């Protein structure tokens, strides 16, 4: 099909530029990872555990092998190389060996000619399980039998905690954590399990190369770290495994861990045929990691005039069965536990445990979401106790550049906390709408059968912040390669994963800016032609890709000048300022910084609650966000609106429900995400103070809106109802019958 593009202006850094992939996405031509096909292709299917904890005593494949259309049935015995993999620690079996530790853990694989044949054959695999008592309660996990007796997360430089089932135990001691003050408020807060619920299900195509290697076309967030986990499990050299980015239908952290990459490759290499695997929605819900559920105890001590003196925090995160990226989530939750406020004394204990609940790892906001909900509830509570305006209280304590974090790190870059508070607070909120009105605009929408008699309104406020980039000494870099042709055109190679956030556009804008030409194309993202870009996570990709592409473009121009013209091809690696580990005993930074940089956001929310029916309506969201420098303002506001929606979802409706570790709502019928009827208008103010350490001053923008919006929505419900609301998602029972 040929289509004529609307006339698009090619832009540079700072301009509004329509997405290069926009047209193929609106016409249906864009190839997502589930859209791929190859001649002779088979369909793979994964048999998963129906138990959250069980011993495997036997597996009988004979009936499955004899089923029509089946080409392979594989178990852990067929894993050619390492049997375990993992993002940080190798603690997760490619296929369960003698024990399953979570509901949905992969046990066996089938390849067949038709997906239904593969599913039916998988049902014929007989697995004998001996159920074991699941560890379903994170609070008692450290008193149970160890799920991982060889303690894979110990001895890696983190604080050694001898109790069983510790993923990470971190203590930050800052100033004098015993110091008293005039006033103290405390609370216990809980956050349910949230799911990334990206719309494009896990999927990909694995194609054997005929020489023992494999090409994997997959939707992922970090091509090179996939390769580095896949190759050892296949018993192959890294260059024998080429990972290519297929179209990604959203990620939000949920594609940091592997899904079908090793499984599809095993089936492809075994059958010597291309193999495609596509999860359905239920399998997607059980097949990937989630946001950590948390229980958080907080005490804030302050002077009578509202200055924070001491904050004491205990955080418990349920990591589920395998470690994934839990250690970094544990540390992030601790780092941001006090919020974007200057606090001279603090004691922060952050603990993540193994259980038989669904494994948890990265999701947008990464530990900061959970603690923001808690610290902002505390700030509202403190304001009430002191009879100070909640916004004034936040301004009084706002963190700024040059201040010291509880980890001892001095904030070197920009962090305009007071400014985002002032600008969000200054946004005019809409007038209350008259009653009666169209039920579509009542809490609960057209399901609301009243005339609105029980409607109460509240205006809430919250502030949050988060780090940008990988922390604690991780060698974080991004490679970019630039090929300048003799005719002046340029081709950019960068493995930065375009997951929908728009990094492909950022790369093109930077290249146009640096090269001074519009004749720039972006080559396919692959491990085959360029070095690692690192992960599309931690709000880092814009910063890192901008740095790498800028440096490579400048180097290419210099080389062309040296050569007096002609074609050049250069690759450059960009690193952000170095970070250092936290001291394992004190939680203090062992160098100049443990986090690279920070970004903050403030949000004001208007909510209505029907206190007779327990229904809510979010009327309006206004926010001001510290973005450093907006590379593409339209894409930035898009991130803010989408990020706010995900935080609203956690506040009001999104929770993975479990019983003894079994997920009971793995569908979009039972796990609800915000629809067009749930989302209000979002007014976004971009606060631009370029960060001195960042290329063009850019900061990541994806996470701060998600960090702050859950807290801000609940703050508005709290004002409307007068209830404490210490758990998200807020349930109808929590707000009904005042």
């Amino acid at each position, binding site marked *: 099909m040929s*289509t004529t593009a609307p006339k698009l202006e090619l832009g540079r850094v700072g301009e509004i530029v329509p997405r290069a992939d926009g047209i193929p996405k*609106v016409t249906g031509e864009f190839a997502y990872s589930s859209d791929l096909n190859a001649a002779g292709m088979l369909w793979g299917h994964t048999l998963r555990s129906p138990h959250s904890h069980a011993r495997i005593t036997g597996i009988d494949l004979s009936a499955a092998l004899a089923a029509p259309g089946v080409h392979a049935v594989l178990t852990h015995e067929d894993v050619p190389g390492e049997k375990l993999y993992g993002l940080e620690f190798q603690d997760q079996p490619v296929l369960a060996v003698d024990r399953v530790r979570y509901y949905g853990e992969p046990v066996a694989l089938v390849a067949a000619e038709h997906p239904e044949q593969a599913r039916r054959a998988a049902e014929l695999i007989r697995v004998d399980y001996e159920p074991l008592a699941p560890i379903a309660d994170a609070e008692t996990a450290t008193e149970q039998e160890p799920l991982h007796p060889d303690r894979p997360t110990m001895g890696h430089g983190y604080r050694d905690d001898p109790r069983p089932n510790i993923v990470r135990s971190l203590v930050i001691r800052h100033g004098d954590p015993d110091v008293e003050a005039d006033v103290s408020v405390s609370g216990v807060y809980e956050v349910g399990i949230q799911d990334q619920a990206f719309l494009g299900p896990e999927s990909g195509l694995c194609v054997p190369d005929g020489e023992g290697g494999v090409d994997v076309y997959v939707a992922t967030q970090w091509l090179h770290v996939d390769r580095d986990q896949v190759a050892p499990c296949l018993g192959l050299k890294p260059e024998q495994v080429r990972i290519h980015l297929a179209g990604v239908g*959203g990620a939000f952290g949920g594609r940091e861990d592997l899904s079908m990459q090793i499984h599809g490759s095993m089936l492809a290499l075994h059958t010597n045929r291309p193999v495609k695997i596509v999860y359905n*929605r239920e399998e997607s819900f059980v097949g990937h990691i989630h946001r950590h559920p948390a229980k958080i105890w907080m005490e804030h001590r302050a002077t009578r005039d509202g200055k924070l003196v001491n904050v004491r925090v205990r955080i418990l995160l349920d990591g589920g069965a395998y470690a994934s990226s839990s250690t970094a989530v544990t540390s992030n939750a601790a780092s941001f536990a006090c919020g974007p406020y200057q606090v001279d004394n603090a004691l922060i204990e952050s603990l993540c445990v193994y259980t038989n609940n669904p494994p948890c790892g990265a999701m947008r906001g990464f530990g900061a979401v959970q603690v923001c909900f808690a610290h902002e509830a505390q700030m509202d509570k403190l304001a009430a106790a002191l009879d100070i305006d909640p916004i004034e209280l936040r301004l009084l304590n706002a963190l700024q550049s040059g201040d010291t974090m509880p980890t001892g790190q001095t904030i070197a870059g920009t962090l305009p906390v007071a400014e985002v508070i002032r600008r969000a607070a200054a946004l005019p909120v809409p007038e209350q709408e008259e009653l009666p009105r169209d039920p579509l605009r009542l809490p609960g929408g*057209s399901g609301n059968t009243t005339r609105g008699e029980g409607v109460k309104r509240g205006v809430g406020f919250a502030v949050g912040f988060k780090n940008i980039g990988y922390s604690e000494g991780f060698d974080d870099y991004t490679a970019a390669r630039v090929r300048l042709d003799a005719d002046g055109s340029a081709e950019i190679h960068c493995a930065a994963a375009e997951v*929908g956030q728009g990094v492909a556009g950022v790369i093109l804008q930077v290249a146009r800016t640096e090269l001074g030409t519009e004749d720039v194309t972006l080559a396919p993202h692959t491990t085959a032609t360029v070095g690692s870009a690192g992960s599309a996570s931690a709000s880092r990709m814009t910063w890192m890709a901008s740095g790498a592409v800028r440096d490579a473009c400048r180097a290419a121009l210099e080389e062309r000048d040296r050569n007096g013209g002609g074609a050049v091809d250069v690759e450059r690696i960009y690193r952000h300022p170095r970070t250092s580990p936290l001291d394992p005993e004190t939680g203090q930074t062992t160098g100049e910084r443990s986090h690279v940089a920070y970004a903050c956001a403030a949000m004001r929310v208007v909510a209505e609650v029907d206190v007779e029916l327990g229904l809510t309506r979010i009327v309006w969201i206004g926010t001001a966000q510290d973005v450093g420098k907006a590379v593409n303002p339209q894409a930035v506001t*898009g991130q803010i609106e989408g990020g706010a929606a995900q935080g609203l979802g956690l506040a009001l409706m999104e929770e993975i429900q479990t019983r003894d570790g079994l997920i009971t709502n793995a569908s979009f019928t039972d796990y609800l*995400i915000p629809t*067009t009827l749930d989302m209000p208008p979002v007014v976004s103010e971009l606060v631009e103070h370029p960060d001195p350490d960042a290329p063009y001053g850019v900061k990541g923008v994806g996470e701060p809106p998600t960090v702050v919006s859950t807290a801000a929505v609940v703050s508005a419900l709290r004002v409307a109802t007068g209830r404490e609301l210490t758990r998200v998602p807020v349930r109808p029972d929590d707000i009904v019958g005042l």
Partner: protein
Amino acid sequence: MFGMRIWLRVNGEPVEADIWEGESLLYVLRERLGYPGSKNACEQGECGSCSVMLDGKLVCACLVLGAQADGHEVVTVEGLSEDGRLHRVQEAFVVAGAVQCGFCTPGLVVAAADLLQHRPDPSDDEIREALSGNLCRCTGYAKIFDAVRLAAR
């Protein structure tokens, strides 16, 4: 696994396919007929990413059997642009920044085109209601509303 042969029209073209009776129209379009534009986000009627027009009616292709489409007329997102020009809804989605990952986009574009065909100048509430069966996880919908308003103008 071929149980039957069906004949239908997709985007105006007559096509035929050998299918297994249990296959959804979505599967038949995507895997048998080479129209992968309609998306498979849930395959259980909850997300709208598979929205197509069946005999002029908006349906979730995952909820219709391929066999039910035998002898019928289907229009997918691939069939919206005419004479090589984007449909005005498609163009508005690009210009308004309503596309991020884009996985919801084909379904939303088809649903929005259907809305504007019946209501050329919908109110904001009508837009919200008409698109409430189409989930988007990336955008928070603000720019999708902008796009529909832009296309309606």
